[in-house]
């Protein structure tokens, strides 16, 4: 932490261009997330939200643009070393190791050097956040409900001891009361100083807890602002909250 410029964003993405084969997915996207900030990323399906998160995590190689984390260019850093820097992603669809127990999944989260020493404490922290996981620690992950699996996914990412946690649609396909539990956990995680970069289809909930948000459409950022401002924005209301949300 020593020597970091005050006020400099933790994650800075500048002019990012990513293509899947010949199809352009991101056409010059610039976003930033400050240390300890919660930032929501909104946009329709196919806008490029997952592409942005996967590129930052090092799973995709951008064509152009820069990704800086804590001032360091991540352009040539391998995905597993990005985790070592303190940047973790909870991927879309959770991507757990289904044949292993809850405990094995969580312990694999602490595989990185930065996480190993503190893995006991991290495990306690995850169990405090999601007590049900402590009860089910020896259960094979594929036997859990979708919501509990999502808790494992968030827990596994937390085990890496991240400074910035990115989440790709954590509420997709899980029961509403568990969505609430997971979003509440994100706020609790953020209070410990961890930055959150959240892709979420539940726009109301996401903007309710985010400090700021971006709107991504067709591979470009078309709007940004504080959570409250975006909730009042006509375009956001029309596009993401449904016609009934637009008051005359």
């Amino acid at each position, binding site marked *: 932490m020593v020597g970091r410029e005050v006020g400099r964003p933790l994650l800075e993405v500048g002019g990012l261009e990513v293509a899947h084969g010949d199809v352009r997915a991101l056409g010059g996207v610039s976003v930033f997330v400050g240390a300890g900030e919660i930032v929501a990323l909104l946009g329709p399906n196919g806008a490029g939200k997952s592409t942005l998160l996967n590129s930052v995590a090092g799973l995709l190689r951008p064509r152009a643009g820069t990704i800086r984390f804590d001032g360091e260019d991540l352009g040539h850093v391998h995905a597993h070393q990005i985790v070592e820097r303190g940047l973790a992603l909870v991927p879309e669809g959770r991507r757990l*190791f289904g044949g292993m127990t809850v405990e094995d999944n969580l312990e694999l989260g602490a595989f990185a050097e930065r996480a190993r020493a503190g893995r006991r404490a991290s495990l306690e922290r995850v169990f405090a956040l999601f007590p049900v996981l402590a009860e089910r620690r020896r259960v094979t992950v594929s036997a859990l409900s979708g919501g509990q699996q999502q808790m494992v996914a968030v827990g596994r990412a937390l085990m890496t001891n991240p400074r910035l946690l990115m989440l790709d649609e954590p509420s997709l396909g899980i029961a509403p009361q568990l969505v609430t539990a997971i979003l509440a956990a994100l706020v609790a995680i953020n209070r410990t100083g961890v930055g959150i970069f959240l892709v979420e289809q539940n726009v109301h909930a996401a903007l309710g807890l985010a400090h700021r948000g971006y709107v991504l459409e067709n591979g470009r950022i078309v709007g940004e602002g504080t959570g409250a401002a975006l909730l009042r924005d006509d375009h956001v209301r029309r596009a993401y909250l449904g016609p009934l949300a637009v008051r005359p």
Partner: protein
Amino acid sequence: MSILAQQLVLGLLIGGLYGLAASGLSLIFGVMKVLNVAHGELIMLGGYGAFWLVALLGLDPFLTLALVIPGALLLGVGLYWGLFGFVVRADEETRVKNSLLIGFGLALALHALAVRLWTADERSVPTPYGGAVFTVGPLSIPAVRLLSLAIAFALILTLQLLLTRWRWGKAIRATAEDWQAALLTGIDVRRAYLLAFAMGTALAGAAGTLVTIGYSVSPSIGLEWTLKALIVVVLAGLGSMLGTFVGGLVLGVAEAASAAAFGGPYREVIGLVIFVVVLVVRPRGLFGR
């Protein structure tokens, strides 16, 4: 009746080696999605390694495992760095195709090398206790083959323990399940591939040693053992090493039974029948996930 029982026991004994031969192939395929068709040639090399150590150093044949296994481990590292490591950069479908080409090339090269070094003759290594036989009722069980079976089982058990208890063993399993998710937990997936390939090669070396002790080795046994291993991998499915061992035993017994029922030439046919039937009826295998 007792002749049939005797045949089945011998089938069980060689089945343990089928299981051991398949475990390395299964590990490499399961983790890297790379099919190493030179696996049988690696088994053959392990056999000659043991043969050499016995001939040159006068070691007890079973003790050669202590040198063959580390040697094969290093060979695996070399083969990964020199050949197979390039394949894993491609997507999974391309990986299988490219690994087939590399594997066939490697198999031809190793076969030619073995003919050159050791001639095409069949070799075996005598053990001081070679003739010892346990008699159980009407059955006679050759001590050497029984010991080979026990060692094969011990090696598989060790592998299973490594994969479930060791930190990098878990990383290897995680990589097998979802390599991108493994990356996201900070696992160096390339290193997991390297470890899996080296361990798979070491298992091939061990299998070759046991084959040479209990049976015989020649430069041309490679294809036969690749086939046996492949049949067992299909039969057992991926994901469980103990399951692979059991699959090997099943193949050994099935071969013995079909030889007894239909005559010797049918020994080789039953494996292919099993191969096709399993692919049609239960493609993920008996114990596969």
